[in-house]
């Protein structure tokens, strides 16, 4: 590997270096010095983002013997992951202090998770994809159980670990089959093997098992059952992170795998994913309807949202992929906002997460209620928010590709989702508070919410620039 190529890995090195540094600093910092740890994490994210900026415009290239792709697609996702990681660190600050889990490892694990996600988006080789998933998974298993003395957090972590291990094993099995069929784990080689006349028989079961593994990470029905329990039990900032980061990473890996390695099997995987998209949307929304725990409701909503995103994969066109990238940005913003409010209001022990706890919020904390309201409207896909534009382009790509039925099912699902998103609005705006205690949120969370509101409206009114960026980013995907 020549120095030129090493330069492209600088952002990853910064993240991992900072993670190691944080773990070394942890034993030596006193309670008052914890703030420094967080600063190190945020600074590492910022420097890594700057280092990435230098790579923009270099043009697509492969390094590491063809294992790693550096192109617009991977840059886009790496940025997204850095933003998610940075925001998660900031969102967690007050919460972790309140819950007494403000330790350096927390931020170190966020950084390693981020580097795992980045690898998934950059990978052009099944082995590297697997390594990325493992780095990400191990970090999140621990993060989910970070409240060691909390029984729910422990349950969440263990459940995630057990089911996750199964999924990874299945993924590995899939990799083995594909390797057996194509004679290589590199995407380009697999593609060539499938293109050369007859498709090897083992490739199809391999594809199926890979979809199981990645579908588990994305949370696609029928591999979704871990999500509600894990999301509910994990500390709220971790839930916030898991609902956007790993999901986006798995979608990035899925896109790369399907488009770069297995375009030859497109008829097969579009059919499979069509079915999974329908199931995911419908089951996620139907289950969210009956939840009274806000975290659990948002967990099912996250499942449903993954279904909408899958619509773009099924379309299997440039428009579809562009819409996915755009929607992931919107989804990140709105979900982080929603969870930002949830974790700020959840109170001691992370317990106040029921619908009743949101009664009369508009009176007690007008700004917080308004911010959550905007996020919910966006999740429901109301026009003038980014959520509408995202769905508009996603469903539009499906209609263009001829999947009118899928688009109809998707919009009917959106109607379902309106019910539970608006029910939270009902509680916030139309019910009276049982007791009128004013809510307070920390200043950083407030700032994130304010920026989020602005971004959601911007994405909803003037999405052209973001779409152009997304469209440019998928050019590397081929």
């Amino acid at each position, binding site marked *: 590997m020549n120095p030129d190529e090493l330069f492209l890995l600088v952002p990853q090195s910064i993240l991992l270096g900072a993670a190691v540094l944080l773990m070394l600093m942890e034993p030596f910092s006193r309670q008052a010095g914890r703030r420094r740890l967080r600063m190190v994490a945020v600074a590492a994210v910022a420097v890594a983002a700057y280092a990435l900026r230098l790579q923009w415009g270099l043009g697509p290239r492969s390094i590491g013997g063809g294992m790693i792709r550096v192109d617009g697609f991977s840059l886009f996702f790496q940025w997204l992951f850095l933003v998610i990681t940075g925001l998660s660190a900031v969102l967690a600050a007050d919460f972790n202090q309140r819950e007494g889990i403000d330790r350096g490892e927390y931020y170190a694990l966020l950084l390693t998770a981020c580097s795992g996600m980045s690898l998934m988006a950059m990978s052009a080789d099944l082995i590297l994809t697997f390594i990325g998933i493992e780095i990400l998974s191990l970090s999140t298993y621990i993060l989910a159980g970070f409240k060691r003395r909390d029984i729910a957090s422990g349950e969440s972590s263990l459940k995630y670990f057990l089911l996750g291990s199964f999924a990874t094993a299945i993924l590995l099995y899939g990799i083995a089959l594909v390797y057996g069929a194509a004679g290589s784990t590199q995407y380009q080689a697999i593609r060539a093997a499938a293109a050369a006349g007859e498709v090897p028989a083992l490739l199809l079961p391999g594809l199926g098992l890979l979809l199981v593994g990645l579908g588990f990470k994305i949370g696609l029905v029928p591999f979704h059952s871990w999500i509600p329990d894990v999301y509910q039990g994990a500390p709220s900032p971790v839930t916030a992170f898991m609902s956007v980061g790993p999901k986006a990473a798995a979608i990035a890996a899925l896109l790369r795998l399907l488009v770069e390695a297995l375009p030859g099997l497109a008829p097969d995987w579009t059919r499979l994913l069509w079915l999974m998209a329908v199931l995911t949307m419908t089951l996620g929304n139907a289950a969210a309807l009956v939840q009274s725990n806000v975290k659990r409701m948002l967990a099912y909503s996250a499942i449903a949202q993954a279904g909408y995103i899958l619509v773009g994969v099924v379309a299997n066109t440039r428009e579809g992929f562009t819409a996915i990238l755009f929607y992931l940005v919107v989804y990140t913003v709105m979900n982080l906002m929603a969870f930002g409010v949830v974790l700020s209001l959840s109170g001691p022990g992370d317990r106040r997460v029921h619908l009743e706890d949101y009664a009369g919020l508009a009176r007690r904390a007008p700004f917080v209620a308004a911010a959550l309201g905007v996020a919910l*409207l966006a999740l429901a896909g*109301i*026009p*003038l928010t980014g959520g*509408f534009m995202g769905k*508009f382009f996603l*469903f*539009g790509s499906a*209609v*263009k590709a*001829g*999947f*009118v*039925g*899928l*688009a*109809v099912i998707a*919009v*009917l699902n*959106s*109607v379902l989702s*309106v*019910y539970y998103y*608006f*029910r939270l609005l*009902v509680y916030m*705006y*139309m*019910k009276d508070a049982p007791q009128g205690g004013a809510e307070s949120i920390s200043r950083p969370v407030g700032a994130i919410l304010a920026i989020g509101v602005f971004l959601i409206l911007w994405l909803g009114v*003037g*999405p*052209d620039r973001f*779409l152009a960026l997304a469209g440019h980013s998928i050019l590397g995907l081929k």
Partner: protein
Amino acid sequence: MDVPFILSWITYLPAAVALVLLALPRASNRTLRWIALSGSLAAFLLSLHLGFHFDASSSRMQFEESVSWIRFPAFEIRHHLGVDGISLFLVMLTTFLTPLALLSSWKSVTMRVRPFLACVLLLETGMTGVFCALDLVLFYVFWEVMLIPMYFLIGIWGGERRLYAAIKFILYTMAGSLLMLVGILYLFFAAGGDTFSLVEIVARLERGALAWSSREEFWLFLAFGLAFAIKIPLFPFHTWLPDAHVEAPTAGSVILAGVLLKMGTYGLVRFCLPLFPGAALALAPWISVLAVVGILYGALVAMVQPDMKKLVAYSSVSHMGLVVLGIFTFTPHGMTGALIQMVNHGLSTGALFLLVGMLYDRRHTRRIADFGGVAHTSPVFAAAFLVVTLAAIALPGLNGFVGEILILAGSFARNKVFGTLAALGMILGAVYMLRMYQRIFWGPKNPANAGLGDIGTRERILLLPIVGLMLWIGVYSAPFLRRMDASVAGILERVESAGTPGGSYRVQFIDPPGTPGEETK
């Protein structure tokens, strides 16, 4: 005189005022109310300009403005506004009723005044936008965004069962409109994937550059039509309406009945007919049947309502059915009658809700049985109520008559049975309206009403313009009808390009082209 961007001014002025309201943290409720009222009055004055400078001889869009909104390499979404004879009076109706709605809530809304005023103003922006938008996406945005303030109006300031009504309202309307979104997307790609402009797509259809297969046209018509049918509401999609009407605060009911329902019938005329004339022709007998059922059903249910608001709500189902019947006659009479009847219904039902609201403010009950002999204590109020009631049941000389006679004339030309049944519905209308009037204002005096008093200056000011307009349209409707004629002729010509509607409607089984299962690929 040409005012640049006049439609944008009318549309966005209320929203701007709403933002000003939200940005004034210390202003007293009184100040806020005055600011809101003057903002909506300014929008009304601007809309008068449209009325005066409208060229009645042209069926083209007027006061058009079009700027690029969202731009892509392959296509763009434009901020494209314009009015013609179909939308002109609906825009004016919106700007006319909003200040009245604000004025009506002057005393009755005392909690959370600022967001209330902001919601009403945002609603006005949304409704005006719906009537002006000529780009499909822009139209859809206004159509959906308008739901949110209405949802809050019902849900926060509404009556006992407001939460149920608010959720029901939003779910019903969303279900229809999201299917329309798929319709819009399909239309866009079918039309070449480069424009969302309604004018351009219709032009392509007329030129023959774009043609529907009968199956496509049928499903697209349904996708759009369902959204509109729910909004109108056409029987059997009407069940959200009584709940929403009854639970909404007075201002909300006025706007809901006065303007919102017209968005549905407007949508049919503006989108369904020119875009899918073939399907419209084929389905016209069936839609007419639904309309007639709605007329009779609404009237019969209204007859047995003990609650005034519910009675008026079901009368709306009946009257809007008549409007739909008029549209689908595809005769100049029926169509013009339907358009003027949309305005009439907005005026009379809006006024009825205002009047009921005045009673409710005083007695906090809407049960008809709680009243009686009110004419003795409130003579002016009784007189105003009488005029509005008579307008609603189409007494000659008042506005309702003009619309109804035109619609009935049109529908008799198509199908005598429909015409007869619709006329029967009108007679039933007279029965329930007059009975309500009789039971409230005459009859034995209820002692609880002794201290009712007559209406004050604010309420008189409120009713005067409406009653004035009712008389004007009733006595001299030419200035209104004249402005509609050219556009109506244009629409009819477009419909007839797909085939002649034939002499008389016969309800016959239509073979739906294609089954829904085939749509999914």
